[in-house]
């Protein structure tokens, strides 16, 4: 076991500045095999710390060490309340910056915002805010974001406000965030700073941009109308970001400040909502931003989504002009690309983007067709619940009277299949099915049947609201009385069917619904009257019958008696039995029944009009009491003094009504008690001892948690493999792998060979490496390389196939569609049925026509682009020779090698420089291009040839981009090669050609090859050259 974690003498420990105790504690916890074992260590540690912390004169560095351990124990769910005061003390006494920061950190983690100890921090915070060291100021401001409370505000407000003009942008940034926090709690306190914040926003300081935008998002969310004048400022910032005016280190993977873009687009969207002028001002810019993001990598997807969300919010007039374009110019058509993707994250993006857009716009822009519809329908069968839920939302959005039947069928099917543990989803489905059936159904018989079906499947989940809704659907009077009576007839027929079944198997909500229906409308069907009444009586007197059901039956029977003016003996007998019921309510109702059954006139009076047919308007202001109150006041009563606590209406009515009497009796109780109550109760719950201060009793442990612990190998914190490879790239690979099946096969088999048994793995800080010998030519073993291989072995041994090899799974859905023609036709039917639903009813027929035509033309368009690339080809050929020429004339190799050769750098240093400087755009391109080129690259690595130019064809860089180009190895180090490459991108829809010079970074593994694109070559070279210079100086 000890071999898996570093020993005390190991370098990690020596350099970390950790104490021996800290080290041992973390190591023990890390090695714990079960939750109980971990708990035991933590409990021991807490006892130790409690003892230590209570000793006088502990040095602050020791204190920091102890407090960090407490943070760890707190994270693991243990009570560290005894240490809270010590955390506060650490802040007060800290000398070093880290000690201070850790002190503040632990306070923000431990202390509740209304915690009494936080008052003790006020002085120190004030002192630190005045400090000349900006890092101390930052520490205090960061803590304020978490700890600010009502008592602190007056003490720090002025100081924080000053910090808005601090010379360091990091301080200004944090001060803004303190105000952000203040806006949440006391928005009225920052109104006068509005102008200041606007200045900061338009000041164009990139350092505080992220923070100030957070603030404005919340401002605009609160009241967009106040900030409409900000549009030009925001547009200006967004344009500058897009044109790369921000310093380069704001780029993330090649995209300029993606999070800032997202925030600005979000604010613009909120401002443009329902505002035609602003919408028209920003419409084009958003489309432009979207287009720019389309060529990017992972982080651009966020921008694309935000753009679509904002587009969907634009004023309809503006949006119409933006999307009434051929499909490749319509900004919304980008959604199709994502829907089609086999990568679930991208598919999810497609679905959520679609759900932001009103279905009206789907058909408007002429990009929507059966193809998209089919994809959505297919998603319903996905195992991935994220996709399924989103699809259900979409179906709910697009439902109308044409497609209601098919959608409800689909939803019911999902409801039937969903596991009973997912109560949330099932409940949502039940509500939605009933709601949309009632709204859109045209066929009464179907409507009643679908309601009954839903009740049958998930009756246990129907709450009162939904059940009332279901009843309202049947009982509500519409404009069409004929239809109403038809619907009611069906409802009665179905209800009788339900009653005839064995009632013990039927959920009570279904029974209640049927009884209500029968009570109201049984007279619509005369012939079975007697039988039904008998059934009801039988049900009423059954043993163990549900009380609420009993009540409904009594009411229903009463209604029928009132309608027929006849009370048969069997009803009377059943009711009399109910008088002995243990339920007060049932007793009361049966007694009433008996009285009313004798007096039909009174009965009619009471039951008219039927209460179910009207919705009650509740008079919350109790205006009907006004007169009463007025007279009372005139007679000398004191005015009602409302008590400032939230109570339900019933009690307040109760208090209000007998004003005079009550007032005398309750003069005494003082209000402060009520006012302070919420606060004290808060503190109480927070400081309530959880399981003894000593922490000896362990918290309850769930069974399932135990299994998850015991089933696994001993806890071995392993290497976080080098991120680019281990990124588990769920993004980044979305091309088809249809060709090269053979290659793939060989790849799979070669991977299978390298699966090593767990015993041959050894742990070290740098991760575990396979014991097998590294090839001898690999002189410099970089941790990077070993990390990658370890990652790979974990992956293959846990049978998680490497992303490259996931192809077999990927192609499966396609084949399943083509083989199962029955399923296909079923889906076709569904897809076209759903399609007909989108858009307005009147347009329906026209839109079907338009669509089928449109889809065909769209398809043939694409075929033209891909299948007949005559123009394409010619252009490519000519540029190809140009590229060839260009790449020969590139000076990359000279430049870099000149600097690199004399340095004899290690692979690790080399790697570091590239990652730091290469514009941070790393992208694994996998699939065809790599497979095709791998052999050549391997060959070259062995030969060491670097001066040959190679072509690569048809590598796809995401979606519909196809690249063609050539590459040349510039440098080989160990098993890695840097190649320069130039390639053209072709977009099949636009035929636009992009020429890029990039660097390809190949890493050869036994079975596959990763190759990383580094774009923006000129910039890199400059940066590398610059960096190398500093190396020279050091040397």
């Amino acid at each position, binding site marked *: 076991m000890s071999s898996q974690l570093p020993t005390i003498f190991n370098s990690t420990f020596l350099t970390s500045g950790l104490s021996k105790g800290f080290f041992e504690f973390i190591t023990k916890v890390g090695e714990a095999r079960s939750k109980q074992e971990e708990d035991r260590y933590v409990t021991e540690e807490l006892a130790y710390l409690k003892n230590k912390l209570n000793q006088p004169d502990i040095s602050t560095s020791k204190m920091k060490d102890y407090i960090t351990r407490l943070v760890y124990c707190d994270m693991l769910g243990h009570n560290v309340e005894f240490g809270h005061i010590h955390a506060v003390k650490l802040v007060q006494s800290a000398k070093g910056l880290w000690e201070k920061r850790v002190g503040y950190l632990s306070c923000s983690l431990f202390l509740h915002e209304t915690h009494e100890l936080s008052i003790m921090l006020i002085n120190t915070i004030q002192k630190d805010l005045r400090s000349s060291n900006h890092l101390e100021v930052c520490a205090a401001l960061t803590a304020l974001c978490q700890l600010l409370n009502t008592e602190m505000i007056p003490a720090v407000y002025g100081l924080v406000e000053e910090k808005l003009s601090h010379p360091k942008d990091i301080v200004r940034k944090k001060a803004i965030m303190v105000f952000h926090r203040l806006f949440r709690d006391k928005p009225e306190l920052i109104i006068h700073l509005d102008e200041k914040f606007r200045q900061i926003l338009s000041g164009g300081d990139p350092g505080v941009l992220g923070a100030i935008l957070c603030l404005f998002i919340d401002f605009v969310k609160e009241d967009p109308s106040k900030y409409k004048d900000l549009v030009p400022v925001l547009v200006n910032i967004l344009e500058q970001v897009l044109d790369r005016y921000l310093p380069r280190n704001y780029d993330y993977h090649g995209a300029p400040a993606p999070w800032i873009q997202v925030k600005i687009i979000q604010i613009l969207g909120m401002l443009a909502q329902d505002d035609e002028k602003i919408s028209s001002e920003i419409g084009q810019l958003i489309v432009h931003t979207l287009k720019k993001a389309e060529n990017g990598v992972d982080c651009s997807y966020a921008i694309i989504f935000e753009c679509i969300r904002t587009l969907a919010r634009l004023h309809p007039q503006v949006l119409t002009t933006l999307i009434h374009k051929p499909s490749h110019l319509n900004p919304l058509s980008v959604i199709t690309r994502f829907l089609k993707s086999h990568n*679930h994250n991208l598919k*999810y993006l497609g679905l959520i983007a679609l759900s932001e857009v009103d279905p009206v716009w789907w058909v408007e822009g002429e990009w929507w067709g059966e193809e998209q519809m089919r994809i959505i329908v297919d998603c319903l069968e996905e195992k991935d619940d994220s996709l399924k839920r989103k699809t259900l939302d979409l179906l709910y959005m697009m439902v109308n009277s044409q497609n209601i039947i098919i959608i409800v069928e689909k939803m019911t099917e999902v409801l039937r299949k969903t596991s009973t543990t997912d109560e949330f989803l099932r409940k949502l489905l039940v509500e939605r099915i009933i709601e949309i059936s009632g709204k859109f159904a045209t066929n009464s018989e179907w409507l009643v049947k679908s309601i009954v079906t839903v009740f049958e499947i998930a009756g246990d989940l129907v709450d009162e609201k939904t059940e009332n809704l279901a009843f309202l659907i049947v009982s509500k009077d519409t404009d069409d009385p004929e239809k109403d009576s038809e619907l009611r007839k069906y409802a009665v027929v179905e209800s009788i069917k339900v009653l005839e079944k064995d009632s013990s198997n039927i959920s009570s909500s279904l029974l209640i619904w049927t009884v209500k229906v029968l009570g109201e409308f049984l007279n619509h069907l005369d012939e079975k009257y007697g039988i039904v009444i008998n059934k009801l009586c039988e049900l009423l007197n059954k043993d163990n019958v549900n009380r609420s059901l009993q009540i409904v039956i009594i009411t229903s029977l009463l209604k029928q008696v009132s309608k027929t003016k006849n009370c048969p003996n069997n009803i009377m007998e059943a009711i009399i039995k109910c008088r002995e019921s243990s339920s007060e309510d049932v007793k009361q109702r049966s007694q009433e029944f008996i009285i009313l059954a004798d007096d039909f006139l009174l009965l009619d009076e009471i039951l008219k009009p039927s209460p179910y047919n009207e919705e009650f308007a509740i008079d919350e202001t109790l205006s009907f009491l006004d007169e009463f109150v007025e007279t009372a006041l005139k007679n000398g009563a004191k005015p009602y003094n409302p008590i400032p606590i939230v109570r339900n209406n019933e009690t307040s009515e109760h208090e209000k009504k007998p004003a005079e009497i009550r007032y005398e009796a309750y003069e005494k109780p003082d209000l402060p008690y009520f006012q302070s109550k919420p606060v004290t109760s808060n503190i109480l719950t927070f400081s309530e001892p959880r399981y003894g201060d000593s922490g000896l009793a362990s918290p309850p442990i769930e069974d399932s948690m135990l299994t998850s612990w015991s089933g696994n190998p001993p806890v071995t914190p392993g290497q*976080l493999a080098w991120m680019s490879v281990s990124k588990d790239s769920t993004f980044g690979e979305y091309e088809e792998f249809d060709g090269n099946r053979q290659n793939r096969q060989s790849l799979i088999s070669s991977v299978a060979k390298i699966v090593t048994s767990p015993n041959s793995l050894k742990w070290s800080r740098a991760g575990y490496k396979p014991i097998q010998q590294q090839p001898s030519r690999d002189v410099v073993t970089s941790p990077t390389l070993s990390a990658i291989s370890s990652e790979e072995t974990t992956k293959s041994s846990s049978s998680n196939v490497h992303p490259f090899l996931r192809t077999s799974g990927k192609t499966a859905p396609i084949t399943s569609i083509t083989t199962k023609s029955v399923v296909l036709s079923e889906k076709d039917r569904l897809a076209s049925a759903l399609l007909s639903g989108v858009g307005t009813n009147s347009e329906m027929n026209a839109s079907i026509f338009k669509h089928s035509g449109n889809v065909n033309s769209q398809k043939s368009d694409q075929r033209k682009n891909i299948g007949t690339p005559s123009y394409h080809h010619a252009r490519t050929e000519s540029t190809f020779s140009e590229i060839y020429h260009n790449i020969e004339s590139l000076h990359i190799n000279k430049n870099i090698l000149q600097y690199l050769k004399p340095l004899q750098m290690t692979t690790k240093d080399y790697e570091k420089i590239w990652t730091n400087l290469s514009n941070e755009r790393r992208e694994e391109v996998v699939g065809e291009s790599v497979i095709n080129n791998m052999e050549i690259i391997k060959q070259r690595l062995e030969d060491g040839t670097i001066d040959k130019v190679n072509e690569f064809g048809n590598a796809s860089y995401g979606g519909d981009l196809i690249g063609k180009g050539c590459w040349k190895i510039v440098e080989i180090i160990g098993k890695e090669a840097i190649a320069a490459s130039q390639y053209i991108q072709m977009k099949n829809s636009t035929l636009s050609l992009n020429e890029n010079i990039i660097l390809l970074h190949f890493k050869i593994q036994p079975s596959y090859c990763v190759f990383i694109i580094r774009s923006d070559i000129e910039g890199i070279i400059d940066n590398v050259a610059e960096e190398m210079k500093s190396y020279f100086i050091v040397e």
Partner: protein
Amino acid sequence: MLRFFLFINKQGQTRFSRYYNVQLQPEERVLMEADISRKCLKRGDSQCSIFEFREYKLAFRRYASLFFVIGFDEEENHLAILELVHAYVEILNAYFDNVCELDIMFNIEKVHVILEEMVLNGRIVETNKNNVLAPVLEMDKTSK
């Protein structure tokens, strides 16, 4: 709004957690974290990295044996959060020079502080690697 950051390993042990405005008792927190790690483990490689969990949305990525999870509210840009996971890991990676689970365990306070530089009040404030690391490196320098 972001609700929490979690690092959980495959054995279900929490290695790092930070909550924003989530009122949970420690026991509930531990149970929820165990629940989340189970949910993450259950999801296949090809399944969507964003999913619903109780009232939250979760975005997660797996790096070797560790799950990095962010919980957030529906209104957030889901894809931006998913990318934030990676940005955070990249920054940790830059600071710790090939970050591993042990780095996180032994330097939990630094992991916290780096996060504080990126996220405040549950909002993404800073994602520029240099800006995030500058104060941390400066503190390291002065304390040496």
